[in-house]
């Protein structure tokens, strides 16, 4: 019984992590990233 509960909990955790992946692994938006690149290279 404990094993089945463990499997269900693991699957639920995976579903939650993949559904909210932007929250767990944040990346800048393309516009923000392009702005930071332009700033770091001095406009080139």
């Amino acid at each position, binding site marked *: 019984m404990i094993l089945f509960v463990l499997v269900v909990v693991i*699957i639920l955790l*995976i579903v939650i992590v993949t559904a909210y*992946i932007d929250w767990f692994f944040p990346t800048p938006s393309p516009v923000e990233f392009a702005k930071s690149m332009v700033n770091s290279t001095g406009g080139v």
Partner: protein
Amino acid sequence: MSITYAVQKAVGVFVQNPLMVLGSICVDLGALVFFGFLSAPVYDKLTEHGIIIGTLISQKVQSARGKSVLSMLFEFDTLGYVSQLVVLLGLLLFILYVVFVVSQSITLLLAKRAGGEKAMLSVEIRSIALKSVFWSLVLAVLYGIYVLVDIRALVLHKLFPQETGTGIVHVLPFVTGLFVLIAAHHLVGGRKEWFWRQRKMFVMSCALLVAVFFVTNSLLRVLNAVSFELMMFGGIFVVFPLLVVVRLFLREVVKSNGIYS
């Protein structure tokens, strides 16, 4: 027990248990779709991280000469993305592991019960989960070697475009294939003693599986040449039932000497 008897027994069980066959196909197909849904956002994130790291590194290469790409990966602004990339790769492997363990436990349980054996789902999950830890590590090491070989080939091709690949490129698929065959026998219940005592049976079983894989692959290629939809249709209606027969066959093969789990 001979190979022909194992084939006859597997086909017999397959024909006599249409509900088991349908259940196994549904579980295999469901696992594939479920893995697709779960892995798609992770693949997207991996691509995003790859693009960001690639852009940052190419910018660094232009400004800092004499530094290796490896050292640039561990600099302050790239390290965060690189560590996230490693965690994402681990997450992808973990999703594959969980989906594989759950789906294969259920299908092996169905195969064992259809073959007249007593089996419990909790025992199957525990057994496949433990065995899969070892094979996941082997898979990770092989994948790492593939990546290193690819990078080496890329660098060599840039430096010496006229040179062709080295031997390791041709050997790796055979090594991977051998590991897959051993893992397939091990996961359905083959024990260490069985591999040694029944080596003739193991070799014949592997030869038959390779031949079946070769014929199926050729058939799908022919269907793909006609149309992609036909290949998809043929893939679902040929490959999934074939997986059920192969599972039943492997179970009969590992049961041949009474040494199985």
